[in-house]
């Protein structure tokens, strides 16, 4: 489940439906006031409104969409993603693996300072990575460093990582905000109120439940950030955000709900669609009941017209997808056992499983985590009924759903899961027998274990592409889950906003190149 999606359906809880981020001219005392001329040169002052306050300002624990969006602009990471999700240098200028792949040398950028003026160096990098590994920190990215056995500084700007096994996914893992580099002098308690990072913008002020303001970090190591300041303003109701855009108070917003985006599109407001890495799926728990039989799972997979699910649940706004959604490793949907819905094949699979009379599968679905969940389940139920598969839908409050999902206590689950640029980071934790989410995935096999290990050991992009194609095939041929579709995010911008690049992982890092006239 992508972390942005968690509260009740509704504008109130709009974390759930649409992560909305909006920009507006700040410092205006009335809606019509034009931005001061001098700020136009510097790129202007933006107000970034959100449907909710960040739930934490501590980057290692931030999974909420709004929190990630703010912190991404405040903190720096060793590596970064560019607009196409390629891993590029961040606070580390280079990273080189030894011949055997068991030692990684990170060369840190020199002359980087934190917002408080202190210098970033290997001591900070080592302390950050070490603390992320400590259990007591409860950092959410801890498992991404599972292969790292030792972290040491060889000089002021060089960090050596010793690995238990080669890990080609490591550079991508280091690029997420949960791997942010913190000053070794800082504590979680201090950072909760006063973030201190190396990002393009630095923390200025916060009014709880109302707004957070960032200002340009003039000492930023990269190109000088364009905006003078960015305010994330809380407007809890998405329709109210649309109104605020129409009245000119808000100039940019990111919506997940196509209908809201459509409503906003008018006059000077344009909408840009960006395909997302997160995917909608019917998770099957292959350790339970009839689903232990691969033929039953395949029957389900063959009985579903994914385009129809997409059309009915999400207005056709999205793309049918296989397991891997990142552009560089995208799964070929024509390669799955039934590229088109095939009821005959479904019936044959059921017969093979000795269940020609049909099966009943219980599924949990969350009401309110995201807009389309219940509609997806209704359409799936209708389609599967035609294949003698009864989908018993249990609709749960989001809190109850999360509890059941975490415990792996379900036969099937209608889910919207977050995607990652690197397929190992995305699925290694689910579908390897030792993965920390394997209990939730409900499926693993020696073949998959071997393939994931191979993928981590190989650093050649071509080889890796071939390996993850096999992973895709393995997942689809065994119908580990039923992958359905990916959706878009919709960036609504006023004509005054220029230079923003929306990203498939939802990141707002390109606020650093955005200007407002």
């Amino acid at each position: 489940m992508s972390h942005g999606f968690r509260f009740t359906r509704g504008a109130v809880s709009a974390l759930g439906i649409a992560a909305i981020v909006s920009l507006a001219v700040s410092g205006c005392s009335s809606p019509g006031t034009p931005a001061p001329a001098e700020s136009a040169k510097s790129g202007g002052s933006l107000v970034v409104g959100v449907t909710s306050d960040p739930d934490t300002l501590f980057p290692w624990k931030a999974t909420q969409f709004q929190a990630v969006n703010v912190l991404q602009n405040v903190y720096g990471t060793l590596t970064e993603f560019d607009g196409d999700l390629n891993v590029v240098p961040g606070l580390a200028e280079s990273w080189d693996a030894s011949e055997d792949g068991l030692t990684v040398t990170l060369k840190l950028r020199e002359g980087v300072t934190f917002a408080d003026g202190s210098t970033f160096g290997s001591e900070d990098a080592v302390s950050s990575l070490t603390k992320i590994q400590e259990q007591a920190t409860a950092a959410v990215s801890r498992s991404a460093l599972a292969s790292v056995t030792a972290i040491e500084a060889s000089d002021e700007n060089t960090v050596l990582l010793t690995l238990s096994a080669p890990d080609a996914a490591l550079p991508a893992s280091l690029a997420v905000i949960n791997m942010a580099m913190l000053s070794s002098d800082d504590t979680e308690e201090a950072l909760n109120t006063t973030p201190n990072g190396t990002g393009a913008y630095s923390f200025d002020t916060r009014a709880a439940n109302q707004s957070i303001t960032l200002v340009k970090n003039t000492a930023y190591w990269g190109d000088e950030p364009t905006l003078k300041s960015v305010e994330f303003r809380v407007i809890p109701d998405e329709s109210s955000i649309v109104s605020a855009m129409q009245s000119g108070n808000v100039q940019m917003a990111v919506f997940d709900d196509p209908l809201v985006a459509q409503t906003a599109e008018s006059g000077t407001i344009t909408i840009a669609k960006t395909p997302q890495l997160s995917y909608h799926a019917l998770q099957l728990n292959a350790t339970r009941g009839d689903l232990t039989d691969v033929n039953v799972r395949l029957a389900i997979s063959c009985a579903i017209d994914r385009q129809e699910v997409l059309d009915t649940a999400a207005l056709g706004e999205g793309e049918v997808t296989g397991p891997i959604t990142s552009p560089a490793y995208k799964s070929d949907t024509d390669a799955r056992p039934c590229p088109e819905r095939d009821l005959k094949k479904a019936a044959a699979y059921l017969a093979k499983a000795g269940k020609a009379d049909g099966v009943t599968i219980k599924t949990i679905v969350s009401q309110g985590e995201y807009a389309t969940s219940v509609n997806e389940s209704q359409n799936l139920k209708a389609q599967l009924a035609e294949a003698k598969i009864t989908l018993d839908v249990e609709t749960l409050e989001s809190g109850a759903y999360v509890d059941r999902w975490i415990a792996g206590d379900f036969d099937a689950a209608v889910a919207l899961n977050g995607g990652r640029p690197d397929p190992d980071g995305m699925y290694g934790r689910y579908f390897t027998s030792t993965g920390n989410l394997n209990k939730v995935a409900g499926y693993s096999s020696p073949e998959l274990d071997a393939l994931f290990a191979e993928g981590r050991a190989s650093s050649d992009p071509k080889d890796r592409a071939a390996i993850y194609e096999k992973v895709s095939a393995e997942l689809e041929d065994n119908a580990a889950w039923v992958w359905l579709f990916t959706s878009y995010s919709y960036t609504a911008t006023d004509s005054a906003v220029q230079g923003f690049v929306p990203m498939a992982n939802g990141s707002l890092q390109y606020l650093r190149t955005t200007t407002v006239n």
Partner: protein
Amino acid sequence: MTDLAPAPVGPTRRTGSVAAGRLHALLRSPSGLSGAIIVSLLVLLTFASYFSLLPYEPIAQDPPSRLLAPSFTHLFGTDQFGRDVFSRVSAGVANSALIAVVAVTFATVIGTMGGLIAGFFRGIPDAAIGGVTNVLFAFPPLLLALALVSVFDRNWFTIAVAIAIVYVPIFIRVTRGPVLSLREIEYVKAATSTGASRIAVMMRHVLPNITSIIIIQVTLSLSWAVLTEASLSFLGLGAPPPTPSLGSMIFEARTLVYIAPWTMIAPGVIVVLLVVGLNLLGDGLRDTLDPRNKGKR
């Protein structure tokens, strides 16, 4: 002490002719008549929905015909899933009415009994019931309903129970005051002194005298319940989709209002009609039943 005690009437004996007379009087008052007509029309829709007489299945999705404007095939148009808005509104009235009726029934029965017992027996029962009432009253009502709905699996029944719990204290308050004054009335005292059991006196002599107050409160509460359900839907805690309820339909249509206004206008108008109808009916009933209104016209 916030209640206005009714001028007591003597023990009433309800007969068919009295009831018929009351009905006649109700239908003669303009508000009563219009309320009765509106509510009956909506009840007809409800029956149509219960007996599957609707033109379309309210939850059946038909992607090719989504967001169609109103026409003869789809009287109120279709929504984003190609569902027939007329059928959904009809089913929505049924569901909203069901929630409201069940909620108010619970609240009426429990609240009236509580108020009767508290007012008639005083002493410890009164203190206990009063204490619970105070707690429930001091709790912000919408937040109370919201929290209750979050605790249990959300379905129409738990929503009804949540709304009922919010309304129980209102019924207790509304009945307790009049009961307090009634127990001091001569004939009630007389009945008690003749050795009739207190419960019998309570049911035979006190209850009938507060019936009109209760009936009025019921119609008012029905309309509040419809609105509360709608507000809960707005907060994302209404009846779960795809089950249509008027509140959740309005809520879902908020994003559609520019491209398909009928998706909001239809349930919006119907919810207002339903509440107006119930209120008018309540007014009519009050005019007819409330002893205080006697001889005012």
